[in-house]
């Protein structure tokens, strides 16, 4: 295969995979939604869960995007330093988003700022957004995809607290945001919290937290305990599906952390709606692939 053929092949697979993730939610999200429905007893909340599961079924059956807001594509790449298409990846992902926009179809959501023109392709300046991590001595490449809806991107927030405000300040920061904006962001929500040094590092980590599976835990024992405490506490707020009340408010809470300056405590919150369109696909150097989020995805294999 020539380099061009390889690029085309990877573009085709990625376009199909992005399309697939708009149609079918990841397995971990579906199984958590099942648990939340089973625990619910409020009749209005149950009628909402019923509609959600009918939508999940019908979207798969008809091959259509589960939500009309197909979001803006964000990628996290963990690329082996010797993956043969490392230098072409950005080009490949941009082409894949354009192709998926036409073929799935996805709603064109990308508006160039200042010019205020919809590009029509879901790509443009800085879009798709890509965060990179190079993995030394590996020839494969893992790509996590996420389609960020407008309604659930709106509540995102980051600030730098005084260290004296402590972790209690972090709890208040997160819960304030959820009480104010959560009901409109299509709960049950996945909550990503970043704790670090400055607004940018905390905000980035809060998004990275959304890329982690539902039900996974931070390797730090204390952070992991705080994830469970936040999850339990936010559920007890009783926001319910669509914010109209019910037993659960969230799919889960994921915290990602990094060092802070002695004089700062940065905190960021990113939310994802119940239609959490996250996917993970891992390529080998010859472009074989497997996915752990979407067991049913195949492409010419």
């Amino acid at each position: 295969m020539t380099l061009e053929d390889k690029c085309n092949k990877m573009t085709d697979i990625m376009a199909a995979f992005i399309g697939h993730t708009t149609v079918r939610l990841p397995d971990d999200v579906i199984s958590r939604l099942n648990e939340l429905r089973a625990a619910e007893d409020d009749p209005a909340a149950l009628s909402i869960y019923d509609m959600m599961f009918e939508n999940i079924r019908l979207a798969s059956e008809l091959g259509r995007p589960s939500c009309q807001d197909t979001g803006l594509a964000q990628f996290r790449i963990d690329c082996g330093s010797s993956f043969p298409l490392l230098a072409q990846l950005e080009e490949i992902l941009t082409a894949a988003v354009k192709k998926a926009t036409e073929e799935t179809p996805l709603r064109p959501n990308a508006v160039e700022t200042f010019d205020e023109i919809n590009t029509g392709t879901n790509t443009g300046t800085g879009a798709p957004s890509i965060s990179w991590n190079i993995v030394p001595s590996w020839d494969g490449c893992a790509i996590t995809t996420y389609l960020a809806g407008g309604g659930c991107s709106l509540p995102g927030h980051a600030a730098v607290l005084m260290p004296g405000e402590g972790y209690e300040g972090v709890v208040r920061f997160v819960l304030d945001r959820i009480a104010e904006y959560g009901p409109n962001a299509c709960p049950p929500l996945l909550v990503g919290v970043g704790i670090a040094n400055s607004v940018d590092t905390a905000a980035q980590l809060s998004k990275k937290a959304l890329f982690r599976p539902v039900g996974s835990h931070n390797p730090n024992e204390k952070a992991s305990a705080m994830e469970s405490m936040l999850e339990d506490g936010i559920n007890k707020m009783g926001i319910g599906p669509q914010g109209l009340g019910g037993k659960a408010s969230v799919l889960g809470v994921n915290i990602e952390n990094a060092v802070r300056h002695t004089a700062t405590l940065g905190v960021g919150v990113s939310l994802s709606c119940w239609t959490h369109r996250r996917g993970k696909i891992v390529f080998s150097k010859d472009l074989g692939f497997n996915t752990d989020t979407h067991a049913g995805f195949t492409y010419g294999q």
Partner: protein
Amino acid sequence: MTETINGKTIISTPFTDSDLNALHAGDVIFINGDIVTGRDDVHIRAVRENIDLPADLRGKALMHAGPIVRRSSDGGYEMISIGPTTSMRMEKFEYDFIEKTGVRLIIGKGCMGSRTAEACRKFGAVHCVLPAGNAVVGAACIEEINGLDWQDLGMAEALWSLRVKCLGPLIVSIDTSGRNLFEEKKKEYNARKEEQIEEISKKLETIL
């Protein structure tokens, strides 16, 4: 007209005063008949630019939605996905919009504010929530696309006139008395938030 079929309350267009006055915040309903989509740009054009709507909204429903529509092979349109968008973005315009167009049932996502609640009370209108993220079920409720106006606003912002069958569940969030379910719920959530902040902070002390 309001009927109860298999335990479901179904209201058909044209909506009457008695259909709407019988609804209370928290009720779950379904609707049949004519709806029109309109979101940010439609509201800006109708209210700020004071341009008359090309479609008559009296007795029909307005849905805050930006659908995905595909051109079909016969030259018509096919609804691929439709679901509600955040209603709060229209709060600034909704009072004037209701007054100007005579629309009495609004479908959207999430809460609306006190000006819309005031318009609901004054003009006998209701706001309902259609659970969002369910755009394929939404599309399956669309029987027919029978109009497209203000196409220059783009696919998502244009005014689509649609015929729907059993669209729902719709949860009444503001009723004709102006009662606002989300405002009440938010107070509950905020009260519980304070309890939980205290609770979590106490637990954190034991591990940090």
